[in-house]
Structures are given as structure tokens and as C-alpha cells.
């Protein structure tokens, strides 16, 4: 099991405030919380705002369950980049004897993993993953490619932490662009500005900066350095709690990585480029609570209008 990352004093204090106010509901496991009604009201407002904005710019809406066929995970390269963050679904296989033993060991909180077998499913590591094989299956792209809003889907990261802004399961709202290299780059630059405007429109002091992913191991250092050098990852950052600002959204430019992995063909037969923009619903809510206070009723009128227009 991964050792939980300890919270800084201000992260721990903010977490306590959120629990006391009933915005978060404790589960007993770091990074897994229930949400109170007001938290969810804010989150749904963000979901609506992002869906509305993506739709106004021509996004096609697709929705997927928070489970990924294991085969897609295996084809994506995720296991080489982030083996430490993956959650795979295991399920019981056996007869009555094994079921009885499993129950006995489980009720004593002992190890019962030997009765569990890997299934065809993994927990969704990033909400953009099911989009690539779905688009590839349609055949060659039309000229210009596609823009997909994959919605605010649950995703899992095995990284327990005492920081309320680092959840093991959260809603990641992914916008995905697949198409010709220059179109994809244009889209990313356009949405970097738009993403910043969306967050600033909610009264958040957001900044855009280049970033790198927490790639695994020593090889991961090369990947992270490459990602930074080539400006493949950008983040929209806001100070919530802790020594550094928190990324509320991140852009990844994958070049032809997923185009090759899932054989996504351009209209002219070339390999498609892809980029995605993922907003973390919960992190945006936390930034709003930190900035405007824990009582949603007292949030600035302009912010309330943006979130609860409908």
C-alpha cells in the first residue's frame, strides 16, 4: 500500500474546516470523501459551466462510465508512465470453499487477495482515455478532426494524501481535441486562454504555467524533463493551501502518442495528433471555497450567476 503523503498544517486545517462545515464527509481513507449538498451544488455548477462553454465552441458530448476496459489501459502506455497510480479491478473467483475462506479472512481483516483475480476492467485513470479508441473505431477522421467533451467523469489515482485537494477519486472534466497537428496546437493555445478566462470569471486568481507529470522512476525524470522542455503540459494554477499553488486544470499535448497507440487516422491517411484539457471539479470547488468562503450564499453575485445560470 502507498504511504499517505502528509498534509501541511494549513492543508490539514482547511480539511478540518471542510469536514466541520459538512462540505466533505470523512470515509476513513485519505483522499476519499463524500460530499455534502452545498459542495455538490457548486460542483454541478462547474460541470454545467464547462459543458455549456464546450458546447458553444462545437464540442460533441460523449459520456463514459468510470471504468476502462483493461485492454485500452494496456494499449495507452499509462502503465509505463504511471504504474504507481493505477487501480485495477479484481473480483472473486472460486468455489464454496474459497468463498468461505475469503469471508473468514476478510472478517478478521487479514489478507484475502489470493481469492481475487484480475478482471477485464481498470479504474479510469484519466477521463480522456476512452475517447481515443471510440474515435478510432469510427474510421478515418473528417478534415478538421473532432472536439469531444467527455464530461466530468470519476477518475482514480492511487496517491493517498492528507491534502484535501489531492483526492484518490475525483471528477475530471476532459475536453479532447483530435486532428491535424496544427489544428490541435491552435486548439490548445485557444483553450489555454479560455480556461484562464473561465477560472478568472469565477473570481479565482488563476495563472497559466508549464508543468510536468509525476512520471514513475528514473526514466520518468527524462519524460518529465522532455515534457517541460517541449511545453507539452500546461497547468492553470490557484493557491488553495500548502507551499505551492494547486493545478485546477491541465493541458496535455500528446503529439502522435495516442494517434499511434490507437491508430487514429487523419482524413489524408496521416496519424492524428491529440491534446486534452482536464478540469478537476473538486479542486475548482475547493479554490472557490477558499477564495469566497464556505458559505455559498455569500459568494459574489457574478460568480453565482456563472455557476447557476440555468
Amino acid at each position, binding site marked *: 500500500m502507498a504511504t499517505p503523503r502528509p498534509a501541511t498544517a494549513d492543508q490539514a486545517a482547511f480539511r478540518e474546516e471542510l469536514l466541520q462545515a459538512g462540505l466533505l464527509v470523512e470515509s476513513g481513507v485519505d483522499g476519499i470523501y463524500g460530499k455534502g449538498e452545498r459542495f455538490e451544488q457548486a460542483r454541478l455548477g462547474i460541470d454545467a459551466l464547462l459543458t455549456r462553454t464546450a458546447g458553444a465552441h462545437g464540442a460533441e458530448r460523449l459520456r463514459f462510465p468510470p471504468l476502462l476496459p483493461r485492454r485500452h489501459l494496456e494499449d495507452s502506455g499509462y502503465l509505463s508512465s504511471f504504474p504507481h497510480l493505477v487501480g485495477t479491478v479484481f473480483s472473486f473467483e472460486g468455489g464454496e470453499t474459497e468463498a468461505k475462506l475469503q469471508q473468514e479472512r476478510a472478517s478478521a481483516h487479514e489478507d484475502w487477495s489470493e481469492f481475487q483475480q484480475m478482471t477485464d476492467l481498470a479504474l479510469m485513470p484519466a477521463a480522456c482515455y476512452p475517447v481515443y479508441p471510440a474515435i478510432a473505431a469510427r474510421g478515418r477522421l473528417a478534415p478538421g478532426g473532432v472536439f469531444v467533451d467527455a464530461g466530468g467523469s470519476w477518475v482514480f489515482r492511487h496517491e493517498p494524501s492528507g491534502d484535501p485537494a489531492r483526492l484518490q477519486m475525483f471528477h475530471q472534466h476532459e475536453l479532447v481535441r483530435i486532428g491535424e497537428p496544427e489544428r490541435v496546437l491552435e486548439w490548445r493555445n485557444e483553450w489555454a486562454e479560455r480556461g484562464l478566462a473561465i477560472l478568472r470569471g469565477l473570481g479565482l486568481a488563476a495563472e497559466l504555467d508549464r508543468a510536468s507529470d509525476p512520471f514513475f522512476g528514473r526514466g520518468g525524470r*527524462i519524460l518529465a524533463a522532455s515534457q517541460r522542455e517541449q511545453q507539452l503540459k500546461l497547468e492553470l494554477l490557484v493557491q488553495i493551501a500548502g507551499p505551492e499553488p494547486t493545478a485546477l486544470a491541465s493541458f496535455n499535448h500528446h503529439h502522435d502518442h495516442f494517434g499511434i497507440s490507437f491508430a487514429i487516422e487523419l482524413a489524408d491517411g496521416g496519424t492524428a495528433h491529440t491534446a486534452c484539457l482536464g478540469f478537476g471539479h473538486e479542486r475548482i470547488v475547493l479554490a472557490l471555497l477558499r477564495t469566497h468562503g464556505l458559505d455559498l450564499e455569500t459568494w459574489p453575485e457574478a460568480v453565482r450567476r456563472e455557476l447557476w445560470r440555468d
Partner: protein
Amino acid sequence: MTPVTRGEIRQVLRDNARLPVDPESLRDDADLFQAGMSSHASVNVMLALEDAFDVEFPDRMLKRSVFESIDGIAAALQELEMEAKAG
């Protein structure tokens, strides 16, 4: 560094860099990323070089530019060799 070693580097590239061209056809100073090596493939090259030459690249060398060309790789290996002798 001897030409034989550059041959060994080419062998590691042939097995791990997933290049669309034969490494024999590349000049020593050719940009491997331009030639089609992905960042992920460069990680495999790094690990395979460590096995082949029995070295461990320190953190300061774990960056894209070190693995950008056969010359770059040779220079890094030579530096490690010198450090090992001095150490």
C-alpha cells in the same frame, strides 16, 4: 571513445529506440528525436545503455539532450567512465 563503442551504442539503439530507420544510416551527430525516437523510447534506450555498459546515469544526466545523438550518448558514457576511474 573507440569507434567500436559507437557501434555498441548503435546496437542498443537498434534494439530499443524503435527508429523507423537503421541506426547505421544515421550520422554520429544526427538528432535521434528528429529521426523518430519518442520520449518513451528514449527511456528504454537509457535503461538498455545502463545494462550494456554497466553504468548508472546520475540524475543530472536524466534529460532529453543527453540522449539526443550518438555523440551525446558517447560523451555521457565517457564522462561516467572517467568518473569511475577517478573515483
